[in-house]
């Protein structure tokens, strides 16, 4: 019994040590994806950018993230210009490849959320703002943005939860995150169920914590 407890404690410690990787990956790709999504939505408002943004969203929403990760880490990295070019030190790093794939994939989903929120801002208000003589910048800052953010928040939160869960795929391209450590421990100990349940508990804590935080922000915005 005490041996079992010692094993669980050692595993929990190893998993917690890998937590920073999962957190850094989640946070950095959340920032990257949100910024890229804003660019995509802005591009959708122009005539040239519209089809480009459409193709981007179509491709990244229509294919599995696992495939995208393999594409970046093994596929793109095998191309001559990348392999022998200045970008090689980046593409050699699995953490960078995981970040890039997550950023591109999640940007497509978040762009859809932002687009829907933008479409939900009543046209009358935008026209009214124009009639008041507001310039483009003021309109975006004082009329469109505040409403868009409030409308987008619940769905945006869901995407962030999805993103945290998706970071576990980085373990398939040799990133040693929470899932990666769990797999390593299992390879040594053959104790599948306990170890995976510990890892699952870590993700559950992260996603539940984020959900609670977002709900609090939503309530704050509603007032």
């Amino acid at each position: 019994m005490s041996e079992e407890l010692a094993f669980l404690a050692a595993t929990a410690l190893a998993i917690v040590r890998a937590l920073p990787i999962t957190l850094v990956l989640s946070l950095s790709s959340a920032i990257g994806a949100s910024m890229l999504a804003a660019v995509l939505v802005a591009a959708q408002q122009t005539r040239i950018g519209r089809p480009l943004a459409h193709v981007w969203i179509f491709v990244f929403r229509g294919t599995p993230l696992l495939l995208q990760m393999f594409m970046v880490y093994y596929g793109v990295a095998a191309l001559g210009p990348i392999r022998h070019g200045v970008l090689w030190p980046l593409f050699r790093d699995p953490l960078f490849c995981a970040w890039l794939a997550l950023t591109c994939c999640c940007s497509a989903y978040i762009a859809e959320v932002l687009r829907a929120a933008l479409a939900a801002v009543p046209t009358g208000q935008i026209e009214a703002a124009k009639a008041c003589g507001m310039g483009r910048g003021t309109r975006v800052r004082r009329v469109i943005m505040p409403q868009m953010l409030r409308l987008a928040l619940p769905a945006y939160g869901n995407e962030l939860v999805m993103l945290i869960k998706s970071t576990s795929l980085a373990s398939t391209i040799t990133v040693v995150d929470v899932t990666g450590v769990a797999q390593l421990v299992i390879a040594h100990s053959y104790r599948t169920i306990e170890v995976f349940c510990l890892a699952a508990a870590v993700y559950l804590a992260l996603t539940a914590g984020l959900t609670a935080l977002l709900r609090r922000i939503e309530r704050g915005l509603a007032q």
Partner: protein
Amino acid sequence: MSDDLPIATLLGFGPDGWGWALVSGAGLTLAVALGAMAIGTLLGALLTAAQASRAVWLARAAAAYGVILRGVPELLVVLLLYFGAPGMLAAGAALFGLPPPGSPPALLTGCLAIGLVSAAYQAEVFRGGMLAVPRGQIEAAMAAGMGPFARFRRVIAPQVLHHVLPPLGNIWQFNLKDSALVSIAGLAELMRVSLVAAGSTRRPFLFFATAMVLYLVMTSASTALFRLAERRGQRWAGGR
């Protein structure tokens, strides 16, 4: 060396081509997604019923199932089932004094893993859909002497279906993409085939790009099908 084989040969259906392997891989991907969707619908409906149940422990258990399966990475569920199932089955068999049955088939494990996650999301959709039917209508149908089947077919389904179809379409897309995770269990679905082909021909970009195109064909074809179904569903709900 396959390094210098032309693309048409590599992707073709000849002896050096991976065409058939890729196509049958795509077929298995569809099979996993369909199996997962079916398991998810069945279990999801049960979960919805359980959450509406008067037995508090049952409702709580169903809610907890949803929170856990929606909060944990799909990859972990697949890994847990794939690596954990032989041990669990052996332990189960030992209870009855049977020899360990070995690993279940990868297709079954894959469908089950994706299906368990799918169920948690589908239960949410069904719960939302049920709210679309006013209680009074169900009571009225009961008072009119309709049985549970007639009630479902003539009162609930026509009103719920067009609410439920669009989110179910989304879940189907997720199932289709999550099925790639089953490649870890060694099932020769599209992801696995492209990985094997990429490794043995040393043309990863080509094969991953081809797999992406095949996934896009499947996802956009199902988007079109769901849109068609939605239009029919709307007609069914018609008059409003």
